[in-house]
């Protein structure tokens, strides 16, 4: 059954290629424990503070960014269209404002590195020492 093992390798490779991991990042000084439910709370506007009580500033990526769709589906459990419908319910009733959006991974990383209250997400392969990873999805 040697052929079977060989055929598995490209499958695994292609799976990694197609589904890049999303790394949720905060400022290196942020010591708060943040799980997926907490991230969802912050990115859906249902909470504005970390569990520690300090202010949280979620930073979203633009709809055109590749990682946005992955974050919406893997972390928030919704499609980007569903998230848009969700926010339009809050925006057009004056009940909420969606997180600020920036253009890409580099912009998120720069914003998070510069702001102790920030929380964002980037392609896991783009992580470096300027930010702290709190979870990969």
């Amino acid at each position: 059954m040697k052929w079977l093992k060989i055929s598995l390798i490209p499958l695994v490779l292609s799976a990694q290629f197609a589904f890049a991991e999303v790394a949720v990042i905060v400022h290196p000084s942020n010591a708060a424990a943040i799980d997926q439910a907490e991230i969802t709370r912050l990115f859906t506007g249902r909470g504005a503070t970390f569990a520690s009580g300090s202010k949280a500033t979620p930073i979203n990526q633009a709809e055109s960014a590749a990682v946005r769709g992955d974050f919406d589906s893997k972390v928030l459990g919704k499609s980007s269209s569903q998230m848009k419908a969700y926010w339009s319910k809050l925006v057009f009733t004056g009940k909420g404002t969606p997180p600020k959006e920036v253009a890409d991974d580099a912009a998120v990383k720069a914003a998070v590195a510069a702001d102790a209250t920030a929380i964002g997400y980037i392609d896991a392969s783009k992580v470096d020492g300027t930010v702290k990873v709190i979870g990969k999805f």
Partner: protein
Amino acid sequence: MRYTHLALVVAAAIAAGQAQAEVSLNGFASVKAGTTFGSDDTLYGYTSDVDFKPESLFAIQAQSDLGDKFSVTAQLMAKGSEDFNSKFAWAFLSYQASEHVRINAGRIRVPFYKYSDFLDVGYAYDWARTPRSVYDVPFDTMDGASALISNSFGDWQSSVQLNFGAFNGSVNVEGIKSPSKMQNIMGGSWELSNDWFSTRVAYFKADVSIQSDALDPLLGALNQYGFASVAKEIDFDEDSGSFVGVGFGIDKNDWIVNSEWTRVEIDHSFMAQRDSWFFSVGHRFGAWTPYISHEVNRDKADPTIYAAIPGVHPLRPLVAGLVDGQEDNTKVYNVGFRYDFHPSAAFKAELTNADNTIADQKTTLLTFGVDLVF
């Protein structure tokens, strides 16, 4: 029109806010067309000729953070059903009193129904329109104040909205736009939700006055022939009206279920009890969301209103016709789909069959179009 002034003040506040704070501009639009199948059939403003006007609309919303927990929001809307004349759908000042309490004052939506707040934002729901049999209170905004109290308990979110205000504007009485006043609108809604389930209750009351050209000749005749007490049971003269609504929604494993039930009553008027409900089920298949829904409207007539008029009196059949004509039992079936063909736009098509069992009249309507947000 002092409420127009109010809107202008809010608009001016937004412009002033611009100097120091960011103004966020958002918008939404619906472009819809529909046609009925029978040559003389009409439904929701549509006829047997394809028409874009009844439900197409464009809206722009400006919101500005004024600092110190104050913000202003104004929404300008142009509806096809009103010849695209733009007007302020709402304009209000918000004060975030605490993390959990927000006070709004100005022209605001009355949260009668689950989808009241974003009734016009078609993109926010899957249907081509909110269920008309249920969503039929003839006014949807008021001028006044509301308090929004939001709390979380574990996985549950609670949202209470308390409203107080008044509405001045025209409502539809027997097909004629009639000036009306809803005073002392008071009440609130409470919504409790978690990730996949939500439930809500709403209760409102108001003093209802409507000046109706359709009713005036009849009311005049009743008063002249000594039936003033009957006239009082027909007209809307600061009569107490009440609204009760309950509903629930499920959004789990791509199944979407929604249901609401409402009862509207206006004491001492020819409009007796109006009950309505709907039930809707949909399923998400990626970008496609097909759904079916069923709506029922059951209006009662109150013949005791004209019991005081002798059977042989010439006014009796007129009054009986008006009062008994309130009886309605309409069943509506909808089947349709939403297709998210673009990140900010959805295409929708819906086939509606309305069956008025009292008039024995069946009407079929096809609606299709695009809802977008920008």
